[in-house]
């Protein structure tokens, strides 16, 4: 069912490719980027913790905990971010009916240098811990690795958490908070949010059936404000890989969700997919555009590792658990530059990791 690339010229005439393909059995070619999980690791719980601005968005009612104070009563924003992340992890553990001792491994990551938020949370929780960095695609990176470890039987219960914070991200990547600068209309707003999912061998919840590790893709964007444009090609690359490896098509998913391409980035994603022969319909959405309301003045939408985490662990998990969404493709995207590399003139490389989730909801439940 591999569709050839039609052409790469200026006029993007497209062919509608929404065919209803039957889901193929779990076949494994040699050398795929995709992992096929035969032992069905399940997401048994998810916890979402969001800040004030996020709670005023269209998904506000779905968030488990909303904290108005960005410092969470602490002395600095960094310490507050640690609280956001630790609340999401303890909450997810409690929601799964477990205690801290039951968690074999913590996979966590965030946007800060040296992954301080995650490391300091792991210090307090005293769990076996692997720190992950892939910027805003940390959610799917953690889910992919967590699911693979549980599937292989090395660990029984894994917590996958990530977070971001507007104030700490601004300080590290951009300007002081009170500095009067204008942002271009395609800029995005870093979400103050944290999310944690517990993956276990047994339990009730949607199954992670596949995970695709992405490749780094760089189409030469150097504008730090235009993250969506920088990351869209990585999402395209991963989506094409997912379809090639699993033989699914866009029409097989009830929801295709990218992490934080934002309004501009998701339009670019649609255009790029259209150029390659795929017309994405109403089943394609982006967490960045879903997080904030248009009236909140967040330009092109939300971004940050916590953006996709909080949307997935609240709204998407809710829909998977109630059977309203049966098959979801989740592709978080991350921009892998640093301020130093940007000032030195390097362009922005990006990556996108994908996971496929299937609902286990049965009518009689």
């Amino acid at each position, binding site marked *: 069912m591999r569709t050839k690339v039609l052409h*790469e010229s200026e006029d993007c005439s497209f062919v509608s490719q929404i065919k209803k393909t039957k889901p193929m059995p779990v076949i494994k070619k040699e050398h795929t980027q995709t992992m096929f999980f035969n032992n069905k690791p399940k997401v048994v719980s998810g916890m979402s913790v969001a800040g004030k601005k996020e709670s005023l968005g269209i998904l506000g009612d779905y968030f488990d905990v909303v904290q108005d104070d960005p410092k969470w009563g602490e002395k600095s924003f960094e310490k507050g971010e640690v609280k956001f992340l630790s609340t999401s992890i303890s909450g997810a553990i409690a929601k799964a009916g477990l205690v801290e001792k039951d968690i074999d491994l913590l996979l966590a990551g965030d946007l800060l240098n040296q992954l301080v938020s995650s490391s300091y949370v792991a210090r307090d929780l005293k769990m076996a811990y692997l720190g992950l960095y892939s910027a805003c695609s940390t959610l799917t990176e953690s889910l992919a690795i967590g699911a693979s470890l549980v599937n292989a039987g090395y660990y029984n219960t894994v917590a996958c958490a990530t977070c971001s914070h507007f104030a700490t991200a601004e300080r590290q990547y951009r300007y002081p908070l*009170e500095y009067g600068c204008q942002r271009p209309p395609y800029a995005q707003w870093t979400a103050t949010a944290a999310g944690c999912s517990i993956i276990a061998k047994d339990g009730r919840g949607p199954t992670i059936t596949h995970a695709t590790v992405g490749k780094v893709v760089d189409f030469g*964007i150097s504008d730090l404000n235009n993250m969506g444009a920088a990351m869209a090609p990585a999402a395209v690359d991963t989506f094409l890989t997912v379809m090639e490896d699993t033989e699914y098509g866009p029409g097989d998913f009830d929801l295709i969700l990218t992490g934080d391409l934002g309004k501009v980035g998701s339009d*670019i994603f649609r*255009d790029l997919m259209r150029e390659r022969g795929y017309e994405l319909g109403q089943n394609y959405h982006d967490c960045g555009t879903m997080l904030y309301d248009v009236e909140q003045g967040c330009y092109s939408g939300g971004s940050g590792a916590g953006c996709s985490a909080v949307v997935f662990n609240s709204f998407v998990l809710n829909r998977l658990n109630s059977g309203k969404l049966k098959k979801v493709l989740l592709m978080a995207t991350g921009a892998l530059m640093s301020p130093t590399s940007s000032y030195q003139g390097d362009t922005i490389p990006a990556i996108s990791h994908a996971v496929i989730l299937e609902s286990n909801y049965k009518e009689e439940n």
Partner: protein
Amino acid sequence: MSEEAIKKRNERYNKYVNTVSPKTAATKSLLKAFAIGGLTCVIGQFIADMLALAFPQMEVQMIANLTSMILVTTAIIITGFGWYDVIARQGGAGSFLPITGFANAMASASIEYKTEGLILGTSVKMFTVVGPVIVNGILWSTVAGILRYVIWVIFL
């Protein structure tokens, strides 16, 4: 893909991104910048005139200095209350060009880095935004001074 093919693809992609990225509404932004920048200057002039009225014997240079000090202090206080960035979001260059913008830049950095302590935080990081302003101000005024001296020597 070859290096050339990659370069061509990136160029084409950049051109495409330029066409689909929304642009700032030029006229509206220009008018707002003009309004806010101009208003800042009008307020400054008002302060200068009030000072001249209150202290008729004061020298012009002293009045100018005092006006700058009052403007800078007001900008710092407004930054402290968190209002300056709200104004600047509309004002753009009208907010960061006048001396009030310089004050805001230094004040915002001082506030931000207070958490790392007074020495390693505030004192070190206070100049992160205004560094280029200070360096270029001193550098180019020195160059101008040297040029003026050279021209004076040559023609006299």
